[in-house]
């Protein structure tokens, strides 16, 4: 991270941006999130400050973009069409990189503060993050599959864009709240903070949040994967026990 900042600094200095360099100093309300049995989502507070050697540059406006990205997994998007009068899955496109969760928060509308080239390079907006392997030759309109993926995940609250949700004070202090939903996938969540001037990223910062199941959740998950036979027997045993208990309890209830 430090090296990246240094790199940016090296790139920026010769370009001669007025007012010298700016750096991000950031903090997170949580560095790890524990998924317990009664987990029903979490509020993540991301805050920080802009560190500079000189006074605040006045010739361009400063904006902040914050992203939180969940682990990615290859998925398949299927499309139904009508065949012999009934609706069946007829086409499928593989998407080999799509985050399970992605939230973007900005100080102002994203298109007003970030150029397309910078978006492409930094992969800030959702469409830039999704990589499709390429559709089978019989599918002409593969973009409509990735559009559908984004649409479905937006409806489920997994992808979101919050324009104006980052508060920036005195061009120095910033903060935002990101709502993490209850259906979080385990793994490392990457948060990125970009400082933007003239539609270009002038500084960036990155941190990881570890999202892990703990306690009973962890135990069950591990057992299911490490000792599947024992887990299966346990499932049947519990079912048998519960069935017997209920039957006995009701008999006692009737007789007693």
């Amino acid at each position, binding site marked *: 991270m430090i090296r990246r900042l240094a790199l940016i600094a090296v790139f920026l200095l010769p370009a001669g941006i007025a007012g010298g360099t700016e750096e991000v100093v950031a903090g997170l309300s949580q560095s790890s999130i524990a998924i317990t049995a009664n*987990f029903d989502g979490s509020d993540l507070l991301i805050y920080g400050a802009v560190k500079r050697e000189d006074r605040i540059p006045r010739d361009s406006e400063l904006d902040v973009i914050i992203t939180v990205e969940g682990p990615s*997994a290859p998925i398949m998007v299927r499309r139904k069409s009508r065949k012999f009068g009934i609706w069946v899955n007829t086409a499928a496109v593989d998407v*080999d990189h799509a985050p399970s969760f992605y939230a973007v928060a900005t100080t102002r509308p994203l298109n007003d503060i970030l150029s397309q080239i910078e978006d492409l390079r930094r992969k800030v907006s959702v469409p830039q993050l999704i990589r499709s392997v390429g559709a089978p030759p019989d599918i002409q309109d593969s973009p409509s599959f990735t559009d559908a993926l984004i649409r479905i995940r937006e409806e489920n609250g997994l992808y979101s864009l919050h324009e104006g949700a980052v508060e920036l004070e005195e061009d120095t202090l910033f903060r935002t709240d990101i709502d993490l939903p209850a259906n979080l996938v*385990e793994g490392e969540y990457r948060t990125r903070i970009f400082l933007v001037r003239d539609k270009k990223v002038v500084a960036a910062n990155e941190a990881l949040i570890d999202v892990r199941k703990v306690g009973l959740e962890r135990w069950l998950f591990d057992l299911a994967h490490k000792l599947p036979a024992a887990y299966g027997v346990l499932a049947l045993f519990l*079912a048998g026990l519960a069935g017997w208990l209920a039957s006995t309890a009701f008999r006692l209830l009737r007789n007693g």
Partner: protein
Amino acid sequence: MQIYLPIAEVSLDAFLLLGIGGVVGLLSGLFGVGGGFLITPLLFFIGVPPVVAVATGANQVVASSISGVLAHLKRRTVDIRMGLVLLAGGLSGSALGIWVFNHLSRIGQIDLVVQLSYVVFLGLIGALMLQESLRALRRSSRPGAVSVKRHHHSWLHNLPFKIKFRTSGLYISVVPPLLVGVLVGLLAAIMGVGGGFIMVPAMIYLLGMPTKVVIGTSLFQIIFVTGFTTFMHAYTNQSVDLMLALLLIIGGVVGAQIGTRLGARLKAEQLRILLALLVLAVCVKIGADLLIRPGELYSISEAAQR
């Protein structure tokens, strides 16, 4: 109260899950159907991933069937000998069914076959049962009606290997129950259910068993079929969610007890009409899904293994 399910990786309302388990358990105790054809679609609907829903649904069916069978055993309405014969046929049928299932998966049309067989079999069985039980109800309500002769002799009674099924009051060849078991096991494996809704009418109409014995006997063999399914899912796919199963089970076993007691108070014809209507309702729902343009044409699934 939200609860996070470790295998399904979603957070759902615990009371909602208890309620779903309860309703399905009630139907299970009432009709002798496992309820697999109800619980799996219900779990899809509230957001449980399909693989987890199928496997965990099977686990819940084990519990409610045990709970129901124990209640039926007390009332001596389980024909264990018949259950074992059906089970023997059922296990060989499901082995065959799994082979057919894998073959269809390779062709890539398994979803369609499953949905179509649901529509065809649910529709057929539901319609037949409804028609028959309405006729029976009309007959019994008419004063001075002749009682129906259940023991009509047919070619079925000329088959060899006759066995006495005392609880059912039958003296028939083992061949028909074995064949019924094979057929039900085959369909159950393809459709991913315990097969109670096929087994119950088959026992009533094909084998001529009395309705009060049918339910307990059906539950008896469902325990083994779904128990086997649960174990195989847990072992090969790690898709049984114990947290989810536990909530469904607690609701289910209580529901099954209430259902069994409720069932003892209802007339056999009324029970059959209710089951017929339920089966037809599920059939219409699945059929409509195939015929009506879905609101969202696209769906997301985990990448297929290649």
